[in-house]
Each structure stands twice: as structure tokens, then as C-alpha cells.
């Protein structure tokens, strides 16, 4: 009897969280699906007719969609590559006997706690400004022409800013994993005369495979929807050069008020994110059993 009561109580305690999340997931998603089948523009009071898949046709064949899909992939891919390729050596370095390691750790992790709008504006104005930014000054010291980041290489500028924000995350996870690596195994390899490089390739790197996968999946989920950094620096421009899918949907919804098309775009974004989520949930789920 007591067990049944306990179970009933357990279920009751769980209900608010489950119910809220269920509503949070189902209602907006259902509305998005519904809106995506309508010709619906907030500026046109006559609109609201059912049009089937027309919005999807319109959204997917829009040249802006292909451009923004490309930008999204370049952004996600580059930031992943940068954060992992810099994160691994950085984590290895921090795993060494370093004097004042906790202070260095604090400095390395700090960018992660800076709100996106601050990071973006500080980088844009104080560092990347073509005339009086610090980078421009350094370039002139070496006799080079300063780069006009947000005109000549806007997507690269965004990539650098976002990478700076996410490098601490990758480094911290890799460092945590390194610290759980069995020292004895490494020492044994060294005793056997293994060089540092082969110890790294045959022992450290395989050990890092899982945390690297986790970094890739979690960063991808967040990077697919990078928004604030673009919103405050380029507004998606020049042209469509820095418009990613998230920004494209935003501009269709809240600048052009084209609810139907933005909803279709939203569903496309959900599908892309779900493909990534599928793999992440599987990895986390496997871990749950252990």
C-alpha cells in the first residue's frame, strides 16, 4: 500500500513540470504548423486563407534560404572547428603543472559569462573597427592595411566573435575529461618509451573522443540559432552575407510580418535541430544507463 501511495505522490510531484513542458512544446509547435499552411501577413487584414504547402515552396525556393543555409553551415562548421582545434591544445596546456592555474582558468572561462550583446558590440567597436579598433592599430604597426571586418569579411567577423564566446566551453569540457584520464596509463606508456606525440594519439585522443562528440553536439544546437550577435552587429548584411536561418526567420516574421512564411521557415529550423538532437539524446541516454 505504502508503495502505491509513494508512487502516486511521485507522479503528482512530477505533473507540473511535465504538463508545463508538454504545453510549451505542443501549443507553439501546433500553431507554427497551422500558420505555416496559411497565407497570413499581419499587414494584410484580408489574409488568412489556407494555402497548403505554398509557404514551404516559397521559403525553400527563396534564394535567401539557400544563402542563409550556407551561412548557417559555414558559421556552425567554422566555430566548431576553431573551438575544438584551439580547445584541445589549450586544455592540454591547462592540464600541465601550471603556476596559478586557477587564475588562468578564470581568465579562460570568462568570455562564456559575457552576455552576447556585450561581446558582439565590444568586438565590433573596440577591436574590429577599421579606423580606431585595436586590430587596425596592430595591423598598421606591421605596415599592413587594416581589415574593414564588417564590410569585407562580415561572416568571418561573426565567426571570430562566436568562437571567442564558445572556446571556454569546449576547453572546459575537454579539460574536465583530461583530468579524469588515468595518469597511470599515460605513465605506463611513457615507461614503455612512447613519445609524447604517440601518447597523445593513442591514449589521450581516444579518451577525448566522447567529450569532443558532446562538445560538437551541444555547440551545434546553440550555434544553429545564433541571433543576438548578428542582430546587434550586421543586421544580417551587407546583403545577405551574415543572414543565418534564425535571422532570416526573424526578419520574415517581425520585419516583413509574413507569418505564414516565417512559420514554414521555423519548421525547417526545427527539423534541422532535431536531426542533431537525435544523436545527442542517444549519447546522453546511453550514459544514463551506466
Amino acid at each position, binding site marked *: 500500500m505504502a508503495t502505491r501511495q509513494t508512487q502516486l505522490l511521485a507522479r503528482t510531484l512530477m505533473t*507540473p513540470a511535465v504538463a508545463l513542458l508538454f504545453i510549451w512544446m505542443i501549443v507553439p509547435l501546433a500553431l507554427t504548423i497551422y500558420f505555416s499552411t496559411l497565407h497570413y501577413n499581419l499587414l494584410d487584414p484580408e489574409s488568412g486563407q489556407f494555402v497548403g504547402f505554398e509557404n514551404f515552396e516559397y521559403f525553400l525556393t527563396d534564394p535567401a534560404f539557400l544563402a542563409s543555409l550556407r551561412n548557417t553551415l559555414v558559421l556552425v562548421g567554422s566555430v566548431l572547428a576553431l573551438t575544438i582545434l584551439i580547445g584541445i591544445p589549450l586544455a592540454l596546456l591547462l592540464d600541465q603543472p601550471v603556476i596559478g592555474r586557477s587564475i588562468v582558468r578564470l581568465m579562460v572561462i570568462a568570455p562564456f559569462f559575457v552576455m552576447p550583446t556585450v561581446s558582439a558590440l565590444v568586438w565590433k567597436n573596440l577591436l574590429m573597427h577599421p579606423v580606431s579598433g585595436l586590430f587596425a592599430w596592430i595591423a598598421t604597426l606591421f605596415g599592413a592595411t587594416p581589415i574593414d571586418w564588417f564590410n569585407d569579411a562580415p561572416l568571418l567577423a561573426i565567426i571570430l566573435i562566436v568562437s571567442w564566446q564558445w572556446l571556454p566551453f569546449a576547453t572546459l569540457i575537454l579539460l574536465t575529461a583530461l583530468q579524469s584520464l588515468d595518469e597511470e596509463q599515460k605513465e605506463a606508456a611513457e615507461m614503455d618509451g612512447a613519445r609524447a606525440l604517440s601518447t597523445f594519439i593513442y591514449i589521450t585522443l581516444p579518451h577525448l573522443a566522447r567529450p569532443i562528440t558532446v562538445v560538437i553536439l551541444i555547440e551545434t544546437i546553440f550555434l544553429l540559432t545564433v541571433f543576438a550577435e548578428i542582430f546587434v552587429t550586421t543586421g544580417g548584411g551587407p546583403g545577405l552575407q551574415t543572414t543565418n536561418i534564425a535571422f532570416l526567420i526573424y526578419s520574415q516574421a517581425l520585419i516583413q510580418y509574413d507569418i505564414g512564411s516565417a512559420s514554414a521557415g521555423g519548421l525547417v529550423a526545427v527539423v534541422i535541430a532535431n536531426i542533431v538532437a537525435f544523436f545527442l539524446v542517444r549519447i546522453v541516454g546511453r550514459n544514463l544507463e551506466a
Partner: protein
Amino acid sequence: MARAVTTRRTIIATAGAWLAGFLIFFPILWMVLASFKTELEAFAIPPSFLFFHWTTENYATVQERSDYLHHALNSILIAGGSTLIAMAIAIPAAWSMAFSPTKRTKDILLWMLSTKMMPPVGVLVPIYLIFRDFGLLDTRTGLTFILCLGNLPIVVWMLFTYFKEIPKDILEAARMDGATIGRELVYVLTPMAVPGLASTLLLNLILAWNEAFWTLNLSTLNAAPLTVFIASYSSPEGLFWAKLSAASTLAIAPILVLGWFSQRQLVRGLTFGAVK
């Protein structure tokens, strides 16, 4: 011989790590320095690193011209409120999943995780329209509600991983002694769970404070937290770098301090326990 190698290695590693740490931290340092310069000096080429006329005038101007405190209060209320409400909903749920698991518990947890994977932009349109129709646009209530739902899965997950580490024997002992579930919760579980509760609270406060999708899209002025306030510096007139830096420094300082305290929990919270 071995000792000499170790010392050399320590020196090289220390130098390398400090250099890397300095470079990564530099943009923040540079921003803080700029906040104490005059606008002319903040703009000057070549830049001055330390030997400039230090002034706190920017901080005064930021408050005077744009009511910084109003937005800071919004940030505190929205981030704090959403985190506390999420905790209140998540604690019972995580408790029951950790201590009275059923065969569906794992599926429920993974399902909760999957709601976090939904890109916010996918539901921007309906949320915006619902907010408009219910008069929630640019209100603290609306933002608190959305950020609470957005972080709820992470809160449940973090709490679940902490609760799971509490030894069950203790609970059984308490039950043997005739403790009711209410007493069990208050006298046995709570004291053991406090560290986990604190780190969950801290991490989610940080996430809510820095959230910049819903806040940018759903608030303009009245309910605008610091993320939106800083964004208003993106289309300025005249010289504004020192003021932008002062406003930014104020906006990130409290969270940087909290963040440094919670760095160890960060990995666990953001990987849903996949990396410990």
C-alpha cells in the same frame, strides 16, 4: 635530471598558459579599461593602455542618460524570478524521478531534454502572437514566464543528477524510523541537496541573465533587461565607446563573479551529465 626537466616543463607550461589566458581575457580587460577613459581617448590611435586620464564620468553618464538601474532591476527580476519559479517546479519533479523512478522515468527525462533542443526561432511566430494578444509584449511577467520554461529542462536535469548522488540508504533509514515523505524531504533530503540546489540556481541565473533571443524579440523598453539595453548601443550617434564600455562592464560584472563561482558545475549542467 628528472627534476630539472620537470621544472623546465612547469616554466614553459606556466608561461604558455598565462599568455593564452591573457589573450582570451583581453577583450574584457580592454573593455573595462575603455570604460575609464574619456570618449576621445577611447577612440584615440595609438591607443593608451594604462597611462590615460582615468575617469568615472562614463558610469555617471550611463545612469543619467539611459536609466541603467531600471534595466538592471528588470534583469534581476526576470532572471531571478524565472530561476526561482523553475526551481519550485523542478525540485518535486527531479526528487520523484531520482527517488521513485519508474520504467518511464528515463524516457521522460530524455523527452524533457529534447524540448530544450527545439530552436526558439521555430516557435517565435506563435509566441510573439500569443504575447501580443494577451498584452504580454514588453512585460516582465511575459519574459519571466518564457525564460522559466526555456530553462526548466536544464533545471530538472541538473537537480536530477545531484539528487541521484544522494545515497538511498539514508532515505530508507529515515523511512524505517517512520518519517513521512514530507519530513523526509525537509529534514533528510534538503540538507544533503543544498550544494546541488545552489549550483543549479547559480548556473540558471547566469543563463537567464545572458539570454538574448527572447529578451531582444519580446521587449523594447519597459521590461527590457540589460541584454536589450546594451543592444540599444548598436545604433548610436556620436562618440559612445567609453559609455558602451561602462554600460557593458556594469552589465557583466555581477554575472562574471557568479560565473567564476559556478565554473565547476558548468560542465555538468550544460552537458546534461554526459561529461563529469
